[in-house]
């Protein structure tokens, strides 16, 4: 997307490293900076560290070295900082992770009520607005098991949005969906991008990348191999590894 106003740097990642206990090195000296309202798509083979990077940003994984700064708040041992970051960074998972014992509405209003201390009516109204936004207001009182995969993922997106995060992360959000349902979820994500949400998206959906991303990062072995605008990436990749990867998935 060309004609968008990108803001200041909201996510600053300096030389982060992460090695898992089993010896696998997922991130090596990884650095990047993301601006407000920027849509960054991360692609790469499995095991390249894409998901690990996302999970480090909100504290699901601990980094071994380096620093992470999110909207001025560092991700360190300070519990208040960590909580602040968890509130401001929303995440959508490949396996949805909806709460099966709660209705769709309850799934969405739970966190705002408990964490942002919103009143019941206010939360309910906000939840219904979000459900309208993701096009399934009629499913408010259904349970997740009664919904299709695409609907569940859209509820998951609404649930993450309910916390009004500054950054939204998508960890292969459409990889577990049947092809017919990928479109409806991608539409929601595209709308979100157009509205100016800062998004970090790990995906294999190149169409999405081409349409709404501001930057594409290609990762392999825990490092950035190449990055650039979508136009540059798909028409004129520089590195051999990038060309090889793209030839396999396009």
């Amino acid at each position, binding site marked *: 997307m060309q004609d968008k106003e990108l803001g200041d740097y909201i996510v600053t990642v300096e030389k982060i490293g992460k090695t898992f206990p089993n010896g696998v090195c997922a991130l090596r000296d990884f650095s990047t900076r993301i601006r407000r309202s920027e849509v960054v798509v991360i692609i790469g083979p499995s095991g390249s560290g894409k998901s690990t990077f996302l999970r480090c940003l909100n504290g699901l994984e601990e980094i071994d070295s380096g620093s992470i700064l999110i909207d001025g708040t560092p991700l360190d041992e300070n519990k208040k900082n960590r909580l602040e970051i968890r509130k401001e960074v929303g*995440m959508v998972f490949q396996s949805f992770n909806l709460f099966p014992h709660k209705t769709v509405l309850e799934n969405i209003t739970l966190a705002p009520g408990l964490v942002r201390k919103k009143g019941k009516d206010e939360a309910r109204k906000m939840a219904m607005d979000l459900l309208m936004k993701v096009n399934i207001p009629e499913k408010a009182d259904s349970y997740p098991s009664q919904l299709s995969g695409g609907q569940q993922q859209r509820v998951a997106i609404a649930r993450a949005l309910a*916390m009004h995060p500054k950054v939204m992360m998508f960890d292969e959000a459409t990889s577990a969906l049947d092809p017919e349902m990928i479109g409806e979820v991608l539409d929601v994500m595209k709308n979100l991008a157009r509205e100016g949400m800062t998004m970090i998206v790990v995906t294999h959906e190149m169409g999405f990348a081409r349409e709404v991303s501001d930057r594409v990062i290609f990762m392999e072995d825990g490092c950035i191999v190449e990055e650039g605008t979508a136009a540059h990436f798909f028409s004129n990749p520089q590195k051999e590894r990038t060309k090889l990867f793209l030839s396999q998935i396009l």
Partner: protein
Amino acid sequence: MSTAMSQSYPNIWLKLKRSPVMDITKFLMVVAVLIWVMARGTQQLGYNWQWYQVPKYIFQFQDGEFAFGPLLFGLAVTFRITAWGLLLSMTIGLVTALLRLSNSFLARIVARGYLELIRNTPLLVQIFFLYFVLAPIFGFSRFFAGVLALSLFEGAYVSEIFRAGIVSIHKGQWEASHSLGLSIFDTYRCIILPQAIRRILPPLTSQAISLIKDSALVSTIAIYDLTMEGRVVIAETFLTFEIWFTVAFMYLIITITLSIVVNTLENRFRIQT
């Protein structure tokens, strides 16, 4: 079991074979055989069955008013012990499970220590230890000693059941909760425990039934529960067989009632699918 094959049998015969009527009939036949074996055995012993003597030890009508007999008094005491025991053991169990799963090394050691100590010593020994050693030192009553021993013992097993339930919840639930900013307390309270408890109701019920039956052991420290009253009545009347059958039957009523209540709860709180 193809539909083609079943259609070659007359429908009525199949329906009968699979119906509850068949199962009940088989069960009653087995019970009848057992009763016959018992009757033959006791005949050879020369035992004089006096069932008509039993009811007066359960209840009586004095001056037109209903009065508890010793067995019903004992039942009431068993109820009290079991009620407290269930409450305490579930609490101890949940707390211990949470301690075992906590990030604090000290918490994990304490919980593990308690678990290993209690699981590896007999309940009867624990009851005696609490009553003869700790009760004089700390000055608590025999009833308290009995309830405490029972709760500590069953609590250890309950804690493992809780832990199994908690650990069986998909990691994604924790991750989603974390990503939404929920505290660990809220995560347990709203997300993990409601799901875990639904899963572990069957083994928890078994443990509760164990507690009800194990409560009979407090009769060894002269708490006048159902078992103790049974022993007293037998000592006076020598109605050994009849009274023990009656006492066993009364325990059965308690445990079956509990099972039915829990089954109803299970159905009511089932997660929609």
